[in-house]
């Protein structure tokens, strides 16, 4: 047994500690040289996924990350799942740095990691090699045009002018832009180096990112400076690294003048499409029965300002109820432009029966390469409507609006969540506990208690009588004792004062007096003369009847 207990304890101990949770902070090297990258990792075991930012430390720069990894392992039956989040960091100057502990909440629990002390030594490689003194690196945002039309896509190339091709961009800050839409393009040839010149001096040139910008505001708009943190690697003739030189480079603000597309040739149907497009217009059916809606699908396909493209303006006449179009996009932002398609799907609900015509739908776009407007026209559509009932909500606009001066004004003041609400919520529970703990005082009076005691006395005597055995030699004396105890308890008397002569004073009713006297006489008789088992049973039954008679009086 002892052996089994030890094994069980061992198993429980093992299984308990296999799920212990540990949150640690660690670095891949310490001490480290100034301006040298190192990895700061936070690791948590058996507590789900981590999501955190490193603490802010003066002189420490986060240059990469977060890099997230999750893995699990099992050693000697002990399984561990680990979540790790790491960052590339760098210390700019020599000294001793303390990375404070951080606390994370995960699955309702809080975990605090250890602090780290990092020794940062002077970087000997930092000595600028001969020939590299005064070298600079420049970043420029180069647009493909500066005078642009509203809605016209403009390419913004992020280009570095550098004295060496061995460099890496550690950090890049793209400005927030409030002049329109901007998205990064897929750039397969990013970072290709070519020879060029900058401010009259020879430099390597590398375009490492391209953004597409679509202005949606007229007048002067600015694209603020891009901030870039670059690390260059200097090698000697034997391809050994002799220096790492960090540079901060900011581009200049790029200023644009956005002009409106004002032209005599501008078609009336023109909305805001700029680029080169083709389109298709399709109806899913030309016959409508019993108010079945008809779907008109317009697909605009091509290269241009697809993200901001508005649906064409359509003259629907008065015969149809038109609902707002469902718009879906399917385009990709490539190096040479935004290409793909945009679909506008209209639900057309006929209002009445008959044959109707939808006039040709017009779509215009401005081709910025050719400086020319184009207008595309669809065919006209004939629609036959049967069984339409006029139960539509008609409005002047395609979008329904609330047109009622009776408003539902919702008050922002709150009773819920106020102190009064919580007090009122607590009161019933306090009352419940009060009633429960003081129930005896509130509901049970002394009269109740007497009644309860009497009831208990009756239950007790009946149980004792049922337990009596007529074959027992002490049957008669036990029965006498039980009856006397019951009468004493019932009438609050001393048991010694209960005897045959006294029964008349105890019971008021004559029947009870006679019955009780008779029972006690028979008990006496059975004590001294042999009695059959049947007679003893009869005596027991008579005693029970007497008790019931007493209870009923």
């Amino acid at each position, binding site marked *: 047994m002892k052996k089994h207990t030890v094994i069980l304890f061992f198993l429980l101990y093992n299984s308990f500690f296999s799920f212990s949770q540990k949150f640690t902070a660690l670095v891949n090297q310490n001490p480290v040289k100034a301006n040298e990258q190192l990895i700061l990792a936070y690791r948590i075991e058996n507590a789900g996924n981590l*999501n955190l*930012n490193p603490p802010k430390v003066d002189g420490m720069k986060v240059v990469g990350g977060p890099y997230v990894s999750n893995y699990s392992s099992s050693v000697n039956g002990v399984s561990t799942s680990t979540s790790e989040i790491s960052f590339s960091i760098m210390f700019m100057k020599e000294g001793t740095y303390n990375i404070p502990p951080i606390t994370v909440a995960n699955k309702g629990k809080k975990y605090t990691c250890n602090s780290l002390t990092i020794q940062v030594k002077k970087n000997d490689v930092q000595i600028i090699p001969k020939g590299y003194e005064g070298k600079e690196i420049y970043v420029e945002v180069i647009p493909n045009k500066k005078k642009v039309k509203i809605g016209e896509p403009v390419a913004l190339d992020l280009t570095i002018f550098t004295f060496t091709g061995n460099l890496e961009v550690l950090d890049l800050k793209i400005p927030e832009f409030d002049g329109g839409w901007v998205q990064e393009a897929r750039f397969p040839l990013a970072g290709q180096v070519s020879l060029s010149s900058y401010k009259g001096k020879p430099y390597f040139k590398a375009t490492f990112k391209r953004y597409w910008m679509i202005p*949606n505001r007229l007048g002067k708009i600015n694209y603020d400076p891009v901030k870039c943190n670059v690390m260059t690697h200097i090698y000697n003739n034997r391809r050994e690294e002799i220096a790492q030189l960090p540079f901060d480079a900011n581009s200049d603000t790029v200023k644009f003048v956005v002009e409106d597309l004002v032209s005599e040739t501008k078609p009336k149907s023109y909305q805001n499409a700029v680029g080169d497009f083709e389109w298709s217009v399709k109806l899913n059916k030309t016959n409508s029965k019993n108010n079945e809606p008809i779907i008109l699908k317009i697909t605009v396909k091509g290269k241009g300002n697809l993200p901001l493209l508005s649906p064409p303006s359509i003259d629907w006449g008065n015969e149809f109820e038109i609902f707002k179009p469902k718009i879906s996009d399917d385009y990709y932002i490539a190096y040479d432009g935004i290409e793909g398609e945009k679909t506008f799907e209209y639900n057309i609900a006929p209002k009445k029966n008959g044959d109707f015509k939808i006039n040709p739908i017009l779509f215009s776009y401005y081709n910025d390469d050719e400086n020319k407007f184009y207008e595309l026209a669809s065919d006209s559509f004939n629609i036959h409507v049967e069984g339409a009932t006029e139960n539509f909500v008609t409005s002047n606009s395609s979008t329904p*609006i*609330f047109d*009622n*001066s009776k*408003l539902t004004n*919702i008050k922002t003041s709150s009773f819920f969540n106020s102190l009064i609400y919580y007090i009122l919520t607590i009161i019933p529970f306090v009352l419940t506990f009060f*009633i429960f703990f003081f129930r005896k005082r509130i509901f049970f009076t002394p009269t109740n208690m007497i009644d309860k005691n009497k009831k208990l006395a009756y239950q007790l005597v009946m149980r004792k009588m049922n337990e009596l055995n007529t074959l027992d030699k002490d049957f008669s004396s036990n029965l006498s004792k039980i009856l006397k105890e019951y009468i004493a308890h019932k009438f609050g008397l001393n048991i010694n004062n209960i005897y045959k002569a006294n029964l008349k004073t105890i019971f008021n009713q004559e029947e009870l007096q006679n019955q009780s006297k008779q029972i006690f006489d028979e008990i006496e008789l059975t004590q001294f003369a042999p009695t059959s088992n049947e007679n003893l049973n009869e005596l027991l039954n008579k005693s029970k009847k007497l008790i019931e008679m007493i209870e009923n009086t």
Partner: protein
Amino acid sequence: MKWISYILFSFSIAFAQSIDEANQFLKSNELDKAIASYEKIILGGVHSHQVYYNLGIAYERKNKIGLAILNFEKANRLSPDNDLIQNQLDNLRLKTIDKPDIIINTGILKLFRKIQFSISYEIWGIFSIIFFFCIPLSIFLTYKSKSRLIFWSTFIWLSFGILCFSFARNSYTHYTKKEVIIINPTINIYSESNTESSILFTLHEGTKLEVISENDKMLEILYNFKQKGWIQNKHVQNINFE
């Protein structure tokens, strides 16, 4: 007393005229005037889903997606179960660049949501108090009448009370949840509460973000239930009614 009712009557007439006027501007596509009128009504202390919805329509027609979504979201807060508002929001979200995950309630959850938003959280709160007060009353009557049926009813009151309280709580959270809508065409999400920190990712106009914490200039946000970061508060507008 007469003069108070006269003032109230004059106020309601003036108010009805201003809302009618704003609606007329919207119908006739005089969008700037309609926007100015609705903004004036809201500044006057009216929080109505109809006004926010119509203002959203006006902004949408002006192609100001961020402001349109902001006002539809406000309308949605005041009337969460309104299909018209929900449809407008769904349509506009198709126009936004960022496409966060959307939780769609189905089956029993949808039914619970429908019941939850059928009345205001204040009413649910009052119901919960009434049910909670039935508990001591039941206990009292149980001891008084010694009825087992009344005793078992205690658990029914408790269950109803908790249900009403949870409806009130959820509804209140929906109404007061701190969320913002991006108004700028493009914004950066920073790793720390300063613009010198590294940029984690970029988001665009019309996207809804949950606010976790804030300081004078920056807000810590949660995007798409999992991505955290900091943004400049000048680029967003609050959905809350403050």
